[in-house]
């Protein structure tokens, strides 16, 4: 699906559409909305929205079409959604993030985009990203891109995570990445979305696609 910008530029419809596929890993505490993300990002195919606890790796995909620098792309985003339960939290009837990472290690060789997910209405889930970024860096590659995703934007009145905290968090994550990969360049964008009313989901879908294109060196 082309965005509004495409409709205003009819000349590009004759351009070749480049295709790309990338792996996206949403991580963060349990119950922040990681499993629901692919379903709400997918505008074209209505996947059933899953609300529940992930006890194993979940797989999903989203196809996005976008135009970047006058080039049309079709990006398939392959989502790998691990559970948000940490090993030390005590797991009941499921597997922890660490166990899943060990089991599916072969799949994490080329993670293109890591979505560091948290709830805007739960400060602890944001603070815990300090734990998650360290886990993410263990399985990422030097080209992996990172996006901070705050969910529950529809509950903005109960917001616990301030804009200043998010700005500082974005800088902090960039510092962590550069600490491990000194050559890494780029930004850690932060987006606030609502899964309930799909606010800013299109922006996130495009941001993930751009992340995949950057990671695959298609877009520099």
């Amino acid at each position: 699906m082309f965005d509004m910008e495409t409709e205003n530029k009819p000349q590009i419809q004759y351009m070749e559409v480049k295709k790309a596929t990338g792996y996206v890993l949403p991580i963060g505490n349990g119950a922040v909305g990681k499993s629901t993300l692919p379903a709400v990002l997918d505008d074209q195919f209505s996947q059933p929205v899953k609300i529940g606890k992930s006890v194993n790796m979940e797989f999903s995909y989203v196809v996005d079409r976008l135009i970047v620098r006058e080039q049309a792309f079709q990006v398939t985003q392959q989502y790998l959604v691990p559970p948000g339960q940490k090993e030390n939290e005590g797991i009941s009837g499921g597997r922890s993030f660490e166990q899943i990472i060990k089991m599916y290690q072969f799949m994490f060789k080329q993670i293109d985009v890591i979505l560091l997910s948290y709830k805007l209405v739960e400060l602890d889930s944001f603070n815990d990203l300090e734990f998650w970024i360290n886990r993410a860096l263990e399985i990422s590659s030097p080209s992996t891109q990172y996006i901070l995703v705050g969910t529950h934007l529809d509950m903005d009145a109960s917001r616990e995570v301030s804009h200043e905290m998010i700005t500082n968090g974005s800088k902090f994550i960039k510092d962590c990445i550069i600490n491990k990969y000194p050559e890494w360049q780029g930004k850690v964008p932060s987006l606030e979305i609502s899964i309930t009313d799909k606010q800013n989901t299109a922006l996130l879908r495009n941001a993930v696609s751009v992340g995949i294109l950057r990671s695959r060196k298609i877009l520099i």
Partner: protein
Amino acid sequence: MQLFKENPKNPGVIIFQNSSIIGMISREAFFETTGKRYGVELFLGKPIKAMLKSFSVTPLILPESTRISMAIHEALKRDSHTVYDPIIVQKFTGEFRIIDILSLFVAENQILLTLHNQYVDTRLSGLPLTNEEAIKRFLKFTGIRQLQEPRVLINLFAVICDHCGSSVNYTIADIVRSHPQLSMGVEIIEKMGSRSYVLYVRHKCGQEIREIPVYHDNELQLRSLRPSRLVETYV
């Protein structure tokens, strides 16, 4: 008998002989003795000394300077059948009075309640610090040097207790005063490149003292609160 009937609150009578005490008959003991079969006939018209012969117990006499708790302690040391007998109090003037054991218990209970309330107040309001002193202590503990809005330090914040539903007001100084060990009342969280504080707001919640963990951001603005936790229960 007439004496007891005229003064229903009279706990007993002291019996003197040549201005020295030879005994005491409590109201309960008197009616117990006269209430027995032929009890009235046995003692009616006879001097009180006759009744005293049936009680071989020496009364407990304490000076009026004796502490209430000590008086109760001494009274409870008596035999089980006389443990609730009244006590004779010797005044500084040399006069004697009788006090029943229940009055002593009530007085002791009053003292304990007062002490307890004082303790609860101390636990809640804590250290006798002025606002300025408390704020200085807070700034030293947290290492805060600059705030965009320094007035936040004297702001009155309000949160709702999840346990009793009442509104709880507090200032930064209140937190400092209620926590002599400040590390128990202020938690500094440094994560994701930002600093936030958890202030534990003490609050008298019915028969309990509870603490409400309240999150403040790096500018000390109130951001959120968590369910309260019990500090102690009292009766």
